[in-house]
């Protein structure tokens, strides 16, 4: 008898436990612990987690004494980079020991470096060496290309150059993207952003080639930030100038380097023929990507007779840079 009673109590207890558990999970008010109740469907909606970049971005303090643009001409990439950055204050102005520095080259297409569709890997390597010499604890290189990332990083020579110069390379993975908030942006106020390489970063440097572009007419350091976004980027072309102005707003870099060692002067942004490329032998460094791009437009693409593409004015309206570079102090230097 005792056994029967025990068995009954055990079984009844289990049944009651299951009933109470199920009842709690489905009926307890939603703010109670372990409750799954979702009376109006609000709880079931995906969260709107998003990120913001630091206020003022990654810019260092402005200086009224130093030149606005540093231009160097020559062949030796190490000297070129040193001279261009030296003209706007030297690497010590931008990178302090223990900084974690992200360098964003343009690796959009699977092209050999000589075709000018991607950042010159030698320039990137020289820049990495310069940043490391300033004591950066880590240098990262990241881009989200148009074509398949592995192929682009391999074919352009960027992966090898970056690793050999001592940088970490980040190629995009599905989990590397998070929504970034860019208050004031017209189109990309909330947009998936290649976040993983930015974790812990204290300085951001852009290094972009000078390219013709079929739609926005010229792709240089400002358009280069395109490669930090994910999501449905192919919608951007519906207002490409608005998007580039948004990009300028989204990312305020420490400084940018316009890589004019090669100029893809037509058939951009993909190119594909050496006939579309001319040697420029020039680097431009500036904290103002618009000024650097404006210089590239008139001096490297040699389109000084044509009006600047619309995104310059749109960005300048937001106070993101100065497009009339001739009014600025430019320090030019010829190196070996």
């Amino acid at each position, binding site marked *: 008898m005792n056994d029967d009673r025990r068995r009954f109590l055990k079984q009844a207890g289990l049944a009651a436990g299951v009933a109470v558990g199920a009842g709690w999970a489905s009926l307890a008010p939603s703010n109670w612990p372990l409750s799954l109740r979702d009376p109006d469907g609000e709880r079931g909606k995906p969260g709107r987690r998003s990120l913001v970049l630091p206020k003022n971005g990654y810019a260092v303090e402005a200086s009224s004494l130093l030149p606005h643009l540093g231009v160097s001409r020559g062949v030796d990439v190490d000297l070129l980079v040193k001279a261009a950055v030296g003209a706007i204050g030297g690497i010590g102005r931008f990178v302090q020991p223990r900084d974690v520095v992200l360098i964003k080259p343009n690796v959009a*297409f*699977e*092209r*050999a470096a000589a075709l000018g569709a991607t950042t010159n890997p030698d320039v990137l390597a020289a820049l990495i060496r310069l940043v490391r010499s300033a004591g950066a604890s880590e240098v990262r290189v990241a881009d*989200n290309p*148009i*074509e*398949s*990332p*592995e*192929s682009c*990083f*391999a*074919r352009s020579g960027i992966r090898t150059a970056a690793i050999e110069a001592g940088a970490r390379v980040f*190629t*995009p*993975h*599905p*989990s590397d993207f998070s929504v970034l908030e860019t208050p004031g942006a017209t189109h990309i106020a909330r947009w998936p952003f290649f976040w993983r390489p930015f974790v812990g970063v204290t300085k951001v440097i852009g290094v972009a080639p000078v390219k013709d*572009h*079929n*739609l926005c007419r010229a792709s240089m350091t400002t358009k280069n930030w395109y490669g930090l976004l*994910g999501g*449905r980027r*192919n*919608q951007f*072309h*519906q*207002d*490409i100038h608005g998007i580039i102005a948004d990009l300028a707003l989204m990312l305020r870099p420490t400084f940018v380097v316009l890589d004019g060692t090669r100029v893809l002067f037509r*058939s951009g*942004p*993909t*190119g*594909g*023929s050496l006939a*579309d490329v001319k040697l420029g032998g020039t680097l431009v460094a500036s904290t103002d990507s618009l000024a650097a791009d404006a210089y590239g437009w008139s001096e490297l693409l040699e389109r000084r007779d044509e009006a600047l593409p619309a995104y310059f004015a749109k960005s300048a309206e937001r106070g993101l840079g100065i497009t009339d570079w001739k009014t600025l102090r430019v320090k030019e230097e010829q190196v070996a």
Partner: protein
Amino acid sequence: MTTPGPIAAERGKDGRLHLRVLSGLTPDLKPNKDGSPWYARTFRITSIRIATQAFFFALFVFLLWVTWLSRLGGYPASLFLEMDPLVGFATALSTHTVYRWLWRGMFILIPTLLLGRVFCNWVCPYGTLHQFIGWVFNIRSNKNLIDKNRYKPLFQLKYVILTIMLVMAFFGSLQIGLLDPICLLVRTFTVAVAPAFDISLAQTFPSLAFKPGLQEPRIFAEAWFVGALIIGLVGANLVIPRFFCRVLCPLGAFLGWFSRFALFRIDRDVTKCTDCDLCLKGCEGAADPQAALRKSECFVCFNCIDDCPEGALSFKLTPAPIKDRIVGSIKAGTATLFGQKVISKLHDTEIRSPDLPRRRWLFSAIAGVLAFPFLRLSRAVNKRGFNEKAIRPPGSVAEAEFLERCIKCDQCVNVCPTNVLQPATLAESGLEGLWTPVMDFSVGFCQLNCTLCSEVCPTGAIQKISLAEKLGLEKFKERGPIRVGTAFFDQGRCLPWAMQTPCVVCEEVCPVTPKAIGTYDETITRWDGVQVTLNKPYMRPELCIGCGICERECPVVDSAAVYVTAIGETRSDDRTLLLKGPKRA
């Protein structure tokens, strides 16, 4: 002396204190009863076999794992496919040639002629998988196992399958890849296992991923079916051990047929054998080692030798048939062999050739003869009725020759960096072309400077091409680039054409120079009065190579406003488009 509990100190016979939990680990180095040294217990030939199987399975997975752009390193990525002698033989039947590395089939054929079907239980990664799963999930008693490992007439089926496939290959339709274990396993890893691994375990260990460095996980047409197939085939081991190997495997049938010539075989000593049937307990091939050994079924796993309590079984060089040398009556128990008493009641020791009656061979051959026209006259792969989405990778031979060569292994799909290569479904290429590679530009695009699929193709369905050949450079300048199709605009869906909205992503990404997409620039007053400059795109068909990046990048993602179809492809003269267009070389 003993104390209760899992861990306890015990005084052993040597008078020392032992921890009982460790006593099981004390090596027992006494020699065996039969006088053989202690290590004969551990280092048996079956242990060596298991190590060999593990090695080849690991090598197989490793080679698939390195079949990826970032791991290029001169590995023989398609080694297992190339040394599959059925691939070499069937493509020789269909094409009368042995392509590139297919002579490596000799690596398997020669051991088979010496030792029998050793491939099946020593090398074949699919066989290893089946054996392993059968072992891990085994719930059978020894008695039940002995029963399950007896030969059954159902095992004839693989010879029927092989015959049908070889006859079809002779006519020019290569179907062995549907069931060939290497093709099947490469395809399963490519389409189902590797992507599943990459979105699960590889999330924790990204460097282990099969395909590192991707923005999106790889997707494949009807991957569920390929996945369900491996679950079903592997699961069948729980019902019939080594179901696939014994019943379906055309490669096993092929090697089984050849193993009649094998110099070595398992031999049963009838003067020792007591007919206890214990040798069947672990018999992988269901080869009847307890009676007349079926040479064509024996996987040479050596389990029977291991399990025989009488030492009656051995692996011997050309053992003599003993049937005619037995003197006396087996029934009466007076039989002797060379003066020794015959104990076994079964005096046959060998059945040489596969157990498929001649009329069934004939039936299978006729089925193969009929299957060829049944498949070829289906509209999907016929010269007169082709699917516009059967877009083959660059370097592919013309469709008829393609079907003579493609083994549906999907190694090209495996190596493709953009995921554009997909295993064809019934929709694109019918049953005959099922799982052959086609390009789906809604998923990926053909990377301009890439010829990886042509490198790994073991049979030359995609011929090995150089980059210069693909792009029409250097000595290929006159012939021009390889075109896989031509892009078309759907003006009703195109933003500038139909919706007064600027776009031209297609022109931007077009990789050829000069670009195959041009624009009519037009400034209009939009419906709301705003001035808009539209760049309305158009195709220059002479320049388009069909790479499909325009379709891939088109913002009208559900059904792109620019799309590629196979017309204009350079691999055949059947689908040319322009009068002045490039002709086949």
